[in-house]
């Protein structure tokens, strides 16, 4: 546990003791602000039955920036260490492979959770700054942050896996965004082809956009919860073995 803690804080420092972490934080805050203000404009133009939270996160632009956060956060994790050779120093210290994998994942995930803070603050500011009663309730706000945190865990794990494949950061980033896009588009299959096709229930089961829609209505469904947690565990398991395998093969 001590080893994990040391590695975790080292990784976390790498994010926030350089401009990198702050830049991506600013980018996330900016995009979140744009989404919120677009949703608010929409409310101004036409009366709507959904809440402001739902409208903010239903905009297609949300996915554009959200999916791009993960390659940026994770591409460096393993590929940089394997390129510069520091992985050798790390794995010849009395450290278990899972310490390394879990500490890197947790540091990237913690950074992702920090990126969510501005979005949360925006909604709080809305209540504080406008005199109108908030056009959303606590359940919806909690729901949306729960699902964002869950999706973030799986997507960060995908990023770790991609970073393990190669010693080039760029390729790791491209592989990561590729995996995320495929995962996202598989969730849209029922949207394009209707729910009469075979395996429609499978596609809607893994559909991140449907999960987001459900949770941002304030419905805490246990199926996505289990799906994201189990998948995160599985992908990290693969990452652990890939890291060892690359060493064995080399």
């Amino acid at each position, binding site marked *: 546990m*001590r*080893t994990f803690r*040391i*590695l975790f804080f*080292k990784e976390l420092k*790498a994010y926030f003791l*350089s401009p990198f972490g702050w830049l991506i934080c600013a980018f996330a805050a900016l995009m979140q602000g744009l989404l919120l203000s677009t949703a608010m404009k929409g409310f101004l133009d036409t009366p709507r039955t959904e809440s402001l939270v739902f409208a903010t996160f239903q905009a297609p632009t949300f996915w554009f920036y959200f999916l791009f956060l993960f390659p940026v956060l994770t591409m460096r994790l393993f590929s940089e260490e394997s390129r*510069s*050779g*520091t992985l*050798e*120093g790390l*794995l*010849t*210290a*009395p*450290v*278990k492979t899972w310490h390394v994998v879990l500490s890197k994942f947790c540091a990237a995930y913690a950074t992702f959770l920090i990126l969510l803070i501005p979005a949360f603050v925006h909604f709080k500011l809305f209540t504080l700054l406008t005199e109108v009663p908030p056009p959303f309730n606590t359940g919806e706000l909690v729901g949306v942050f729960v699902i964002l945190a869950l999706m973030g865990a799986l997507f960060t794990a995908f990023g770790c896996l991609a970073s393990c494949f190669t010693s080039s950061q760029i390729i790791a980033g491209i592989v990561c965004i590729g995996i995320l896009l495929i995962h996202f588009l598989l969730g849209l299959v029922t949207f394009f082809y209707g729910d009469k096709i075979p395996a429609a229930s499978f596609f809607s089961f893994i559909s991140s956009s449907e999960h987001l829609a459900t949770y941002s209505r304030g419905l805490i469904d246990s199926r996505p919860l289990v799906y994201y947690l189990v998948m995160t565990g599985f992908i990290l398991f693969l990452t652990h073995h890939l890291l060892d395998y690359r*060493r*064995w093969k*080399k």
Partner: protein
Amino acid sequence: MIEIVNLSKHYGRHHAVDEISFEVQRGDIVGFLGPNGAGKTTTLRMLTGYLPPTSGAARIAGLDIFRESLEVRKKIGYMPENVPLYVEMRVKEYLRFRGALRGLSGTRLRTRLGEVMETCGLSHVRRKMIKTLSKGYRQRVGLADALIHEPELLILDEPTNGLDPNQIRAIRKLIQDLGKEHTILLSTHILSEVEMTCNKVVIIDEGKVRAADSPSNLVSSMRRAGRVTMELKIAPEVGESILPTIEHVTKVTSELLQDGWTRFSVFVAPNTDTRIRLAALAAEKGWPLRSLSRRNANLEEVFVELTRKD
């Protein structure tokens, strides 16, 4: 300290390390020699637990490197080739991180940090970022990193690679000092370094151990005797026709010097000394003789003899 038994590493069909066996006693400074691609780094990586062996076994301080890898790693200080470091960290920060990773904490970590920075001459750069340091200083950071947890065994992969002569001397001195308290296994190309610092040499080539002994034993057992050089005041043809008649002489070449003397290079069979007979011959024939010497083999010749491809 180290016992290696039939250790192998295969990459597909390529046998990078092929059933090597040797032992290192506690307190030895062992030079691990071999041409490029001989399998030195692969062997060291297997010993440090970075690469798993294909077959065979090795024990360090009585612990199996594969089954008790974590315990073994605690006993080893390893400096990889090219010294990979986290360049965006500061020297002291890096060493503190590495020390903590090896299980040091509190006062002990602080004392050890001070000690290794002092030993490796890093005190005045401790607040500098590693990326701003020169190669020599990075090498020292790597060495400090390997030393911080007071390991029983130091494994250094080409510790003087790419350093200037002054830095090489400094590192060599450091290794000699460290050898008083640690067992050291170091790989290198620089043979003079091995002759000066090591009390045992292991030479490997194409994944196989070619020799494992002390440098002086290797040199004397090799005594190719090689070549006797003598300078006589006679015509080259005379010498070339008469000298080969002496026992053990295999070949004679000559070179006319500017002052009228001739230098003969007399090649003789291994492990023989023909100097007395050559001197007697010169006296018998009445040839003026002004120099007669045998070149002693050095480690470099041993190395070349053991690893040459022709």
